[in-house]
């Protein structure tokens, strides 16, 4: 198990947003955390990347604790977080946003190489390379956010609601590229989604979160087939 979370509790003031959550994601797998609004999905992800401070519990990545590691240092341990709502810098160009992702590596040559990789994965970004990020469409911005995270050469990718506010066709494309990336770059992925069906379809592992607690863990296909999950989260 490469990502191991156990008994993690996170508070927002007096509210317990994440309550005794334990989960494990094996290397190279794509795990989807689904659940309704307010289930604690985003808080869980933000705790993993050092943006929210956990109250108690442990978080390990590759056998080392990542609890208390600052967000800016996490990327140095191979963890990239794409936060909710198109995580790009609007005032910078596409190229600058991508280079920002590689900035910690301090290696212009490698950064250029990664830039070429990312633009070959997302040709649309290549076409718009000198444009400011705020001129992009929602889908393109999400591609840019993911591209920026990939530029850091991560081993673990944390994705927060990449489908948010996108058209169905675009969502499909984004999910497909996440799946492709997971395989081609041998990533371990933790994907948080309200779009439960879309997420479970590409996931290996599914985790259902409700009111801050894990209520179901299973392989993704079984969850899709589970009547209770279908009724609560898949809407049929």
């Amino acid at each position, binding site marked *: 198990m490469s990502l191991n979370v156990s008994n993690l509790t996170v508070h927002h003031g007096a509210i317990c947003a994440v309550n005794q959550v334990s989960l494990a994601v094996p290397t190279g797998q794509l795990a989807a955390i689904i659940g309704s609004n307010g289930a604690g999905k985003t808080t869980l992800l933000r705790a993993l*990347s050092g*943006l929210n401070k956990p109250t108690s519990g442990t978080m390990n990545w590759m056998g080392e604790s990542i609890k208390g590691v*600052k*967000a*800016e*240092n*996490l*990327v*140095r341990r191979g963890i*990239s*977080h*794409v*936060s909710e709502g198109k*995580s*790009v*810098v*609007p*005032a*910078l160009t596409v190229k*600058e946003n991508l*280079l*920002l*992702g590689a*900035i*910690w590596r*301090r290696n212009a040559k490698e950064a250029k190489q990664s830039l070429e990789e990312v633009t070959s994965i997302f040709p649309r970004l290549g076409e718009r390379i000198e444009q400011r990020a705020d001129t992009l469409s929602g889908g393109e911005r999400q591609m840019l956010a993911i591209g*920026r995270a990939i530029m*850091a050469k991560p081993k673990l990718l944390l994705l927060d609601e990449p489908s948010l506010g996108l058209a169905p066709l675009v969502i499909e494309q984004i999910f497909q590229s996440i799946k492709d990336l997971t395989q081609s770059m041998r990533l371990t992925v933790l994907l948080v989604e309200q779009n439960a069906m879309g997420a479970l379809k590409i996931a290996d592992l599914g985790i259902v979160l409700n009111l801050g607690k894990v209520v179901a863990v299973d392989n993704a296909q079984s969850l899709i087939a589970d009547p209770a999950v279908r009724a609560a989260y898949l809407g049929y």
Partner: protein
Amino acid sequence: MINLLNTFLNGITSGAIYSLMAISMVLVWRSTRVVNFAQAGMALLSCYFGYEAVQRTGSFWIGLVVAMIAGALVAAVIEFGFMRILLKHSSQGPIASVAPIIATLGLLGLIKGVIGLVWGNADVVIEPPFSVVGFKIGENTLTFSPLKLLTLVTVTVLLLIMTWLFQRTNLGLALRASAHEPEISRLAGVKVDLVRTLGWALAGAAGAAAGMLQAITGSGGMNPDSIEFRLLLVFGFIAAVIGGLDSMIGALVGGMILGLVLAFTLTYASGSLVFITAFVLLLVLLIVRPQGVIGQKAGRRA
């Protein structure tokens, strides 16, 4: 005709200095969202270090470099040792927007006091490196002198260096990204706290350069209460606001607009109207175009 040329050249010379000062305020605003009223005080303190260097070496250029380094260090120490703690403790509630401003005003007083204590309150003079006698066009002598030309060239060179730094280096990318999206920058691995300190340091260096140029082109010596530095504070701030407070190009344009408007007021109206004109310009701009001449329509985000 000669009058018009004189006025124009005077305007862009003083405008260039205001621009540099405005850029230093913009840099601080962008790094930490603080309007730093102590900026001119910090510049003045740096100029005293510059003055000491000029006294010892006889070279204005060494003095300029020393002042800029001192300015960077002073600013970095203030950000790291004082502002950061202050901002952490007053980040919430009604005090959040006011506390930093009051603090910088207090800092201004403190710096002036320290200068008085160390160097005394009498004028000290930094000798201009070039002649203050104007160039000649035929029979006419311009007020534009080699010294003013030097000022323009120095500001231009500093602006080019800064543009290169901001557009072409990783530090510049980190500075711009952190100014707009600190959280995303952190997730990308940028040490935002360090970048903030460096932003202040750059601002301190720019302010020190503006101060040194103001000191040699101004009407006399420096002292803790010198009028030249009050002008630098007020006009630098107004220029930054005209430019939208968030944009370096805006600060440059704002400084130039202000310099020219004030020069023309001085020549064609009256010297006693200069201050009034500056503030009227500020107020009109805030009403007509609060986002600044360069700022985006959506306004700045906090």
